[in-house]
């Protein structure tokens, strides 16, 4: 099954009224959508509002999604249109806006200015984020080498399971299992910060 087909299967369930399926799609794509709209607006709070609005619009229009394209492509268009509409509204109301010229490119490359969406929260929150980062780093360092390599190749290098299998000279099933076990171990260490 292609990745987009698995998403479409979730969309079908969501269309039938399964909120859980749509929640999964929100959880999967929220960061991508947030990064996407972050190219249009500098204010992190406004970017968050736009991302939320895009998901709500998508949910309202879910019945009109026919599966001709991948779900994310469809969601991408909604998010871009939402951001552009917001920019137009801001321009009309005289609100100062800045549009990154790279916005509109569907590639999901890391932002040229990742600090845009940097957390400007309270000192307590920043401290908690710092602790979380440290716990993840500790958990990663404790992972067996094959698990850490598989997870790193996936998350940092963006390789597919097939490519990782070639690099590590093992079956795809093993790659899947290693990545899963690595995640489970790190999640165990993150547990206090997730609750």
């Amino acid at each position: 099954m292609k990745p987009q087909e698995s998403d479409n299967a979730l969309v079908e369930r969501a269309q039938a009224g399964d909120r859980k399926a749509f929640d999964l799609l929100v959880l999967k794509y929220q960061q991508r959508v947030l990064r996407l709209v972050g190219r249009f607006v500098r204010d992190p709070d406004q970017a968050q509002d736009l991302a939320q609005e895009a998901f709500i619009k998508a949910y309202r229009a879910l019945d009109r999604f026919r599966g001709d394209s991948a779900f994310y492509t469809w969601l991408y268009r909604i998010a871009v249109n939402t951001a552009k509409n917001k920019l137009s509204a801001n321009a009309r109301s005289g609100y100062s806006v800045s549009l990154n010229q790279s916005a509109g490119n569907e590639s999901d490359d890391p932002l040229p200015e990742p600090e845009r969406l940097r957390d400007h929260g309270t000192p307590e929150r920043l401290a908690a984020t710092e602790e979380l980062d440290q716990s993840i780093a500790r958990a990663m360092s404790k992972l067996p080498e094959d698990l850490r390599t598989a997870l790193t190749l996936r998350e940092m290098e963006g390789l597919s399971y097939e490519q990782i299998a070639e690099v590590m000279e093992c079956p795809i099933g093993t790659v899947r299992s290693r990545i899963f076990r690595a995640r489970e171990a790190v999640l165990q260490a993150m547990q206090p910060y997730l609750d």
Partner: protein
Amino acid sequence: MTDRNHPKTQFDPAEILSAWWDHEPVSEDASELNWLLTEMDHSRLRHKLRGYQLLQAHLQNQAAKTPDLLSSISAQLEQIDAEREQQPKQSWQLKTDQFCNPSANHKRFLPPVLRATAIAASVIIAMLAVGLAFFNEPQQEPVSSSAQRAQGPSANDQALRATLESVAQTPQMLTVVDNQAPDQVRSLPSANRNVVNELPSWARGGSVEPASDPYLTTHYQTTAPEYGTVPLQMQIHFGRD
């Protein structure tokens, strides 16, 4: 909480979720995914995916804000669901109130035999009504026309008839009518201009005191009752022509 593995593939639900997160579904169909959604608790799903998200942000060196949008939009999504549940009821009410006979919905729920009987009875009644209407038609006459006949021609009709007869019997006019071909009607010979003098007094009235033509008055009262009487300007115009 211990999860059951997928009955066919023996995958752990969390492994299926992990692979799905990476866009690398474990099998050719969506059965595992459907099974996962049924099997795994919603809060646990969210918890795990939130963990994946934070881990990804850390590994990709994005010291970025990673808000959980789902928490923020959940209330709104629930509200949308509630609206959708109410929507069918509202659309039904809209149809009933605005476009349909209120009893139409009751009729729809009648048994087929009763519906057929009701339709047949309606057809028979309609045919009887048409037959009765035809039967009574020769005996009934419009009240207005019979009353008009009893009263005889109205004063306006009499005046109009007298005017037309007097104009038609004028020898000069007869000459003009006889001598003119249809294409010459617009170019009357100057010698025949005195025919105008034979027109009745109301047609020869001046612009200051326009003659009141009973025919015109009646005509305008009939065709434009909102005006009530013939406007003065119209009387002048018609008087000149």
